[in-house]
């Protein structure tokens, strides 16, 4: 029943925050604290009930995988709420409501991962997607925010529709909405209609994961949103969809090779082109956006390989990306709050003006690049090891070579921040709560980079249970 408690906690927490927000006009700090407490409580409950097994209302499964989704999504929400403590009641449309969307978005992700039928999967996906649409548009006073959010919404709605149509075909092909029955039908030899449906569902999820060629919305949405909101866009939906994809493939689609091979192709495109496009970027948000596409490619590689190790590798990738990618966006937020624009040009000489922020940002970028000792390195290593374990060496060689490109563009940012001379003099005053958040995230990057065994065994446990259904 712990899982049900968590679901209720997130839903009612969101409701409470949404109701309290108009009353507390100036008190978004209080709501941020409450939200962080709710997320922390959800994480504690998820750890306590990690091994719980139950079927709630016939459509939500309590399993280690669901608990894992709660943990990762709550962590993402927790960090974003923390990051939003920093500044800007004056900048936000509804300063307090922001947090309700974090809670509901996390709820949607949990439902998506834990669902046992197409309907709840779809609703969970929509819930988490709508929360991100609103968050992308949240910075109402900036033109880019509205435009990026609009593009995000249109392509998100299109992808949802494609996914939905895929589900309709799966339903038409198998005559059931329940994953177990669909799986049974797929194991007997997938009906052609259902297989086509599965492929369309993959296209829809590919949109949500920002895999090439379904990535067009990413750079604009990230560029438009406030970095704090972008940190959420870059982490929570990816966690939900990444884990949900694994759950959907294992629980419903069984082993249809055509679908996993298509995912492999998407993965290959993503890390090749994402990295190549990122090379040309000078706006840091766009750079991070394109590099996200590349990261999602590596993630999808782990998902396409599958098996306990492949999925656990993908899970670890999500964890590492959540920490480092989030930290990178928070660093941008801290710099923007101090008046530094998010461009390579603007970051020149940042080290001289804000050494602490620069070093913490550097740890995030190094982790994203994949430098040993940080979580991002092990994440890539596990995905590569997963592909080696199934003998996919051609893909492996391409994948490792593309990481070199990643080093190039991340180091270009570091070069600007550490080696160039600043344009303006004077120390910047960096928001202390953001700095503390960055410090925690850097610590987590190092912790998981040095001692991954604990986290990884939890991930393996979650996916072992999933696969052993």
């Amino acid at each position: 029943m712990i899982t049900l408690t968590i679901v209720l906690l997130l839903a009612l927490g969101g409701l409470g925050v949404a109701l309290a927000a108009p009353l507390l006009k100036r008190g978004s700090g209080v709501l941020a604290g409450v939200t962080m407490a709710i997320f922390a409580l959800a994480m504690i409950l998820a750890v306590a009930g990690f091994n719980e097994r139950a079927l709630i209302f016939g459509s939500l499964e309590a399993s280690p995988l669901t608990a894992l989704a709660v943990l990762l999504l709550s962590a993402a929400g927790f960090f974003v709420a923390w990051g939003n403590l920093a500044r800007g009641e004056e900048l936000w449309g509804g300063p307090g409501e922001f947090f309700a969307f974090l809670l509901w978005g996390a709820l949607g992700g949990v439902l998506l991962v834990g669902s046992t039928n197409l309907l709840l999967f779809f609703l969970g996906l929509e819930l988490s997607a709508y929360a991100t649409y609103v968050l992308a548009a949240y910075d109402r006073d900036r033109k880019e925010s509205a435009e990026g959010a609009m593009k995000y919404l249109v392509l998100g709605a299109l992808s949802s529709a494609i996914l939905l149509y895929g589900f309709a075909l799966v339903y038409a092909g198998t005559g059931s909405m329940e994953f177990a029955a669909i799986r049974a039908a797929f194991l007997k030899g997938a009906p052609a209609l259902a297989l086509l449906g599965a492929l369309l569902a993959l296209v829809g999820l590919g949109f949500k994961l920002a895999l090439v060629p379904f990535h067009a919305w990413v750079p604009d949405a990230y560029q438009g949103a406030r970095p704090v909101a972008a940190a959420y866009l870059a982490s929570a939906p990816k966690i939900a969809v990444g884990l949900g994809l694994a759950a959907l493939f294992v629980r419903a689609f069984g082993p249809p090779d055509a679908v996993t091979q298509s995912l492999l192709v998407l993965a290959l495109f993503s890390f090749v082109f994402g990295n190549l496009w990122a090379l040309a970027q000078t706006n840091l948000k766009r750079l991070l956006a394109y590099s996200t596409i590349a990261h999602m490619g590596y993630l999808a590689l782990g998902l396409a390989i599958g098996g306990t190790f492949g999925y656990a590798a993908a899970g670890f990738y999500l964890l590492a990306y959540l920490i480092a990618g989030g930290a990178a966006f928070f660093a941008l937020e801290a710099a923007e709050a101090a008046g530094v624009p998010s461009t390579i040009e603007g970051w020149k000489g940042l080290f001289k003006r804000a050494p602490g922020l620069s070093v913490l940002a550097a740890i995030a970028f190094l982790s994203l690049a994949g430098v040993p000792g940080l979580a991002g390195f092990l994440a890539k290593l596990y995905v590569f090891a997963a592909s080696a374990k199934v003998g996919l060496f051609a893909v492996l060689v391409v994948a490792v070579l593309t990481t070199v490109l990643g080093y190039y563009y991340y180091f270009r940012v570091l070069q600007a921040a550490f080696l160039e001379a600043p344009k303006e003099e004077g120390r910047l005053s960096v928001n202390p709560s953001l700095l503390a958040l960055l410090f925690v995230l850097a610590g987590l990057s190092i912790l998981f980079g040095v001692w991954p065994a604990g986290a990884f065994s939890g991930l393996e446990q979650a996916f072992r249970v999933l696969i052993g259904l």
Partner: protein
Amino acid sequence: MITLGHFLALSAVLFAIGLFGVITRRNLIAVLMSVEILLNAAAIAFAATAAYKDPVFFSGQLFALFIMVVAAAELSIGFAILLNVFRHTGSAATDVVEEMRG
């Protein structure tokens, strides 16, 4: 005799039309209308399958109901964002969204 295949074919045609609309329309409102067509195409497929292949649970028609809920929610958020775009640019043409670059 009308079969499930007829309904699915109709739904496929409708989906193709909607897809065509999403790609070619150059007004955000029109794009969102095309998305509505896509959702309705899926709903038809669900509802028809329920009547033909899922006599016990009938979950497809339930799904069709939920699709309507989703469509309404999507539109309300979409139009709210659209109003913001309009406030900033004075237009609802897709071009205003296209021109973003870093």
